[in-house]
C-alpha cells in the first residue's frame, strides 16, 4: 500500500476513535451539569407535577447509559435524533445552521488566508522597515481588541451612523447569493481582522527563520530579487508551519465564533450549541459537539497530510 494512503486511513480510523471518545466525554459532562432539560425548559414556572410529566415525556427517567447508547446506535445509522426541547429534527436544524456557519467561515477564510500570507511575505520583504512595522502594528492591534468590541465599533459607524450595511447579518433561503454576501459583510470583516494576525505573524516568522539558511544565501548570490527568493525558495519550505496555523484558524472560524454570531445576530452553530447547553438538550449538544470535533480532527488531518506532502523527507521515508 502507498504510504500516503496508509497514513490517511490510519488517521481516519484514529479520528473516528477520537470522535467516539469526544462524544462520551461531552455526554458525561452535560450529565454532570446541575439540572436537566425538563427543569431548564420550565424554569421558574416549574411545578413538581409538570416536571415529572415532562421528564417522563423526554425519557429522562431512564439511566444515562441507556440514553447514551441509544443515541450512539442512532448516530452510526446516520440518525441524529430529535431535540428534547422543541421536538425538531436535529439533522435538519444543524444542516441549516452548519451551512450558515460554513458560509461565513468560507467567506472570511477566502479573504483572510491569502491576505495574511501576502501581508506576511510583504513583511518579510520589508522586514524591520516601516511596511513591516505598519502591518504588524495593525494586525496585532486588531487581534488584541476583543471581537465583540470591534463588532460594536463597526456596527456603530458603518451601520448606525453611515447606514451602509445592516447590523443584522440574518440570511435565509429566499435570499440570492449576492444578498447573502452583502448581509454577512460586517461579520466576515470582523472575523478577518481577528484571524489575520496569527497567520500573518506565522508566515513572517517561518520565512524569516529560513532566510538565514545557506541555500537562501546562494539564491541571493545568484542574483534573484528578494521577492523571488522569498516566493520560490523560502515559501515552499515554510508551508508546513503556515498550513498548520491556517488550519487552526479555519477551525476557529467554524467552532469559535459564537461571540461574533451573537453581536451580528447570525444564525450559526455557536448560538445553537450555547442554547442547547443552557437548556440541557443533550442530543443537540452531542450532535454539535461531534460536528465541531469532526471539523477540528478533519482540519488537523489535512494540515498533517499537507505538511508531509510538502516535505520530501517525510514524503519518501526510508
Amino acid at each position: 500500500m502507498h504510504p500516503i494512503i496508509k497514513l490517511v486511513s490510519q488517521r481516519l480510523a484514529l479520528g473516528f476513535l477520537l470522535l467516539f471518545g469526544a462524544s462520551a466525554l461531552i455526554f458525561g459532562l452535560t450529565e454532570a451539569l446541575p439540572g436537566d432539560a425538563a427543569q431548564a425548559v420550565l424554569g421558574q414556572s416549574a411545578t413538581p407535577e409538570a416536571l415529572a410529566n415532562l421528564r417522563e415525556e423526554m425519557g429522562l427517567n431512564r439511566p444515562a447509559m441507556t440514553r447514551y447508547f441509544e443515541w450512539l446506535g442512532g448516530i452510526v445509522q446516520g440518525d441524529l435524533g430529535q431535540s428534547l426541547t422543541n421536538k425538531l429534527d436535529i439533522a435538519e436544524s444543524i444542516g441549516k445552521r452548519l451551512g450558515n456557519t460554513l458560509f461565513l467561515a468560507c467567506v472570511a477564510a477566502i479573504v483572510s488566508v491569502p491576505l495574511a500570507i501576502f501581508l506576511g511575505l510583504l513583511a518579510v520583504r520589508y522586514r524591520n522597515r516601516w511596511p513591516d512595522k505598519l502591518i504588524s502594528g495593525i494586525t496585532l492591534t486588531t487581534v488584541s481588541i476583543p471581537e465583540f468590541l470591534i463588532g460594536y465599533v463597526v456596527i456603530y459607524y458603518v451601520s448606525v451612523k453611515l447606514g451602509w450595511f445592516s447590523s443584522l447579518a440574518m440570511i435565509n433561503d429566499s435570499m440570492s447569493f449576492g444578498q447573502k454576501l452583502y448581509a454577512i459583510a460586517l461579520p466576515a470583516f470582523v472575523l478577518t481582522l481577528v484571524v489575520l494576525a496569527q497567520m500573518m505573524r506565522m508566515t513572517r516568522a517561518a520565512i524569516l527563520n529560513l532566510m538565514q539558511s545557506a541555500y537562501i544565501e546562494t539564491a541571493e548570490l545568484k542574483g534573484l530579487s528578494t521577492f523571488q527568493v522569498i516566493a520560490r525558495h523560502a515559501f515552499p519550505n515554510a508551508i508546513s508551519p503556515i498550513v498548520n496555523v491556517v488550519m487552526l484558524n479555519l477551525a476557529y472560524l467554524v467552532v469559535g465564533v459564537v461571540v461574533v454570531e451573537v453581536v451580528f445576530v447570525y444564525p450559526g452553530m455557536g448560538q445553537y450549541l450555547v442554547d442547547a447547553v443552557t437548556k440541557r438538550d443533550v442530543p443537540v449538544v452531542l450532535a454539535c459537539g461531534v460536528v465541531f470535533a469532526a471539523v477540528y480532527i478533519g482540519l488537523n488531518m489535512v494540515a498533517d497530510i499537507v505538511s508531509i506532502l510538502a516535505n520530501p523527507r517525510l514524503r519518501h521515508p526510508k
Partner: protein
Amino acid sequence: MNEQLTHMSKQVTAGKLTRREFMGKAAALGVSAAMASTMFANAARAAGPKKGGDLKFGLQGGESTNSLDPATYASSVPFQNGKQFGDQLVEVAPDGTIEPRLAESVEGSADAKVWTFKLRNGVEFHNGKTMTSEDVLKTMERHSNEDSKSGALGIMKGIESMKADGDNFQVTLNEPNADLPYLMADYHLIIQPDGGMDNPAAGIGTGPYKLEVDEPGVRHLFTKNENHWNSDFGNFDSVEVVVINDATARTAALQSGQVHAVNRVEPKVADLLGRAPNLTVNSTAGRGHYVFIMHCDTAPFDNNELRTALKYAINRADLVDKVLRGYGSIGNDMPINSAYPLFDETIEQREFSIEKAAEHYKKSGHDGSPIILRVADGAFPGAVDAAALFQQTAAQAGIPLEIKREPNDGYWSEVWNVQPFCASYWGGRPVQDQMYSTAYLSTADWNDTRFKVQAFDDMLFAAKAELDTEKRKGIYSQMGRMVRDEGGLICPMFNDFVEGISNQLDGWESDPTQEMMNGNISRKMWFV
C-alpha cells in the same frame, strides 16, 4: 402661524401630508423638531389606524430550543409568538378589566364557583376549521390534566370540572374564586384546534397572524390572517419576530431602522437611546418586582426580628436610582403595588433606617455569623450590584451579609426556591389573588419564601369568595400588611418595562400586564 399649523395638522389627519412634508413645513414656520414631531404624532393618531406594512420586532428572550407549543412558553419570544397566532378566551385590558376575546362574555354564579364563558360564533382556526367549545375544553384539559407539562398548570389547580355545552364552556371550581376570568387570560391558554392534543407545536390558532416561518432562536415570520374574527386587530401585512439577545445589537438594530420595536432596553442606556430622533423609549410601570427572598422556616430566617432587621437595612431609593436608573419605583416588602386593582394606598411605606435595622438585629439575638445571600446576574438585571449595595447598608447596621455568587446557568433549578436566601424576580400577576395564590399560600408550589400562615390562607380564601369589592379590598389590605411585617420577602423595587419603539409606529398604550403592551403591539399599533 397657529392657524397654518392647525391646517397642516388637519391635512395630516386626512392623510394628505406625509411626516417628511409636515416636518419640513413646520421647520419653515420656526417650530422645533421635537414639537413638530409631537404635533405630527397627535395629528396622525387622530387619523386612526392605517393598514399595511411589515412590522419587525427585535426581541431578547429567544432560544433555538423554543417550541411553538403554548404549554412551554417561559420567555419573551415564545410569548410574543403566541400573541401573533393565538387568542385566549379573554384578555386583561390595559386598565385591569377583563376584555372579551374568543369568549364573548363571562358569567359567574352567585357563589363564584361556576363560571360560564359564552364563545364567539364563527371563529376560524388557521387550518380552516371552525372553533367549537370542544376545542376550548380540550385546550384547558391539556393544560390541566395529569399528563400536563404546562407552565399554566399551577393556576389550573383549583378546577374541579369543566364541560363544553353548545356555545358555552363551563368551569366549576373546588373553591369560590371571583377572579377566575383573570386566570383564563393567562398567555399559555391559547385555544388550539382539538386543544393541541395531536400536534401542540403546530402554531395553529385563531390569531390575527398566521405562522409562515418558524426558525427557533433566529426568527419567526407571520402573515396577516384575513379571516380573523376582529378586523380591528392586526394592522400589518406581516409580523417578523427576530431574536436579538445581545442588548447592544438590539438597540443598534432599532437605531438603524432594521427593526421597529425592541424589548428590554437597558436602563443605563435608555436615556441616551431616547435622544435618537427616530424612536421613542417607553417606560411602563408594571407589576414585576426584583426581590431578595428568605425562607421563613429555615434558620436564621425563621426569626422575624432578623427578617425585619434585613428589611430595614436595605436602601430602596438608592437601589431604584442605581440599579434601575430611575426606571421603576420603590417596593414595600409585599408583592403588590399601585398597578394592581384594589390596592390600598394607605399601607405605610417602610423606610430605610440603620437604627431600626440595628435594633431589630440586636433583638434577634443572631450569633453574628455571616448571613449568606446567593445571587447571580440572571436573577434580575443588576442583581449582583444590588446585593453589593445591600451588603454595604447592612454592614452599617452591624449585619454581616456575605454574598455568594452563583452561575446563571441552573440558577432557577439549584438556587431559587431551594436555598434559604437569594435574589430573584417576579413578573407579577394581573390580580392580587393570583399573586398571593401563586407564591404566598401555604401549599403553593412556588411559595419561595416558605410563608406558611394559616390566618393568611384563611383570608385569601375569604377574599376569593367575597364579591363585594370594598370588603375584598379590606381583606387584601390586611394580607398585604401581614406579608410586609411577617413575610420573608424583601422587595426593594418594582421594575418598569423599558422598550424602544420606532416613531414610524403609532398607537402605543401603556399596559402593565406584560411587556410590549402585553404582546398587543402587532394587534393595536400601526405605521403612520
